[in-house]
């Protein structure tokens, strides 16, 4: 990268029924970037939400400008992995941020951490430093810690939190990882970190506060646990 050329951050926001959260997420992101003086764009990939998410997105585009808010919707629910691929085609930044549009993530200073260590990937962790959670009962915390322990033993991933989904990637790193990763859903997020370590990319971690979903329900039932275990074992056997 030429000296003096500015970094630009492209945030990929896949949405499905996030009408309540979307304006708040966009506002928080815009404010964080403006305060830190970074150039940014937010790419909203709505999968045909029936609750009017796209309409709210259009209003946000008018407020913030179409150079900052890019709408790249899709006709129906097509999955997270393809949403990122689709979003990346339109990203003009040299860094890509991937996050859930559900206000689970307290937007913090990932960019500083990246500069600090010149990392290829910066990932949020709930388990280290002053990272943590809010609104979790004992059972949920136990499941989370137990699952993470199992993940660490089986995969030795080199990152303390694999299932958080706020991450900052260098664009070319994300491109390469997306080519290699085959899992679906959030197991895909886990696979990205494991593959990143195998390919020798550097991973920095930032403590994050995972505040429980403000609007909407957080999913953690028996089904989620079973599918997590299946995903973990698949990664164990294939990476």
């Amino acid at each position, binding site marked *: 990268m030429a000296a003096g050329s500015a970094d630009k951050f492209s945030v990929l926001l896949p949405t499905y029924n996030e009408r309540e959260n979307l304006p708040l997420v966009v506002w928080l992101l815009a404010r964080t970037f403006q305060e830190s003086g970074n150039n940014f764009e937010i790419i909203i990939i709505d999968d045909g939400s029936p609750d009017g998410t796209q309409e709210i997105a259009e209003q946000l585009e008018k407020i913030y400008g179409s150079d900052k808010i890019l709408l790249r919707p899709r006709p129906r629910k097509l999955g997270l992995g393809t949403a990122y691929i689709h979003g990346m085609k339109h990203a003009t930044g040299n860094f890509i941020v991937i996050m859930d549009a559900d*206000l689970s993530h307290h937007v913090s200073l990932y960019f500083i951490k990246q500069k600090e260590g010149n990392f290829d990937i910066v990932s949020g962790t709930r388990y280290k430093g002053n990272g*943590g959670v809010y609104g979790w009962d004992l059972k949920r915390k136990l499941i989370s810690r137990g699952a993470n*322990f199992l993940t660490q033993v089986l995969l030795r991933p080199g990152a303390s939190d694999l299932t958080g989904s706020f991450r900052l990637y260098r664009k070319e790193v994300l491109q390469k990882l997306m080519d290699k990763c085959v899992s679906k859903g959030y197991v895909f997020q886990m696979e990205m970190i494991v593959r990143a370590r195998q390919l020798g990319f550097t991973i920095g971690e930032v403590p994050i506060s995972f505040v429980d979903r403000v609007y909407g329900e957080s999913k953690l039932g028996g089904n989620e646990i079973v599918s997590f275990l299946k995903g973990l074992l698949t990664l164990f056997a294939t990476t």
Partner: protein
Amino acid sequence: ARGVGAGRGSVRFSRLFSSQAVMTKLGQWLCGLALLGSAWAALALGPPGLQLPVPFRQALLPLPIYLLVAFGCYSLATVGYRLATFNDCEEAAAELQEHISAARTDLRRRGLRF
């Protein structure tokens, strides 16, 4: 600079094979277990020709079970400790609520119809 890093097992094993091949974690475990298993079998079960004195063999025999139990205890202790030290982010939650109000006010002012 190396970021947060732990074992480099997959890279180490890949040197045994081609420069492209990376052994899966499952593969590493199976290799490791095979190695340790055969060492244990050789020493503890004592095929003729490789006989250790009886007390040694008696001590080695239950070793796998002991290790399993030790690992089980370690797991429980570790998860328990991590559970107890899992931070609760009261301030983050409060701050988020403030941000949400500020966001709603500001966006309404700028013409957003919720």
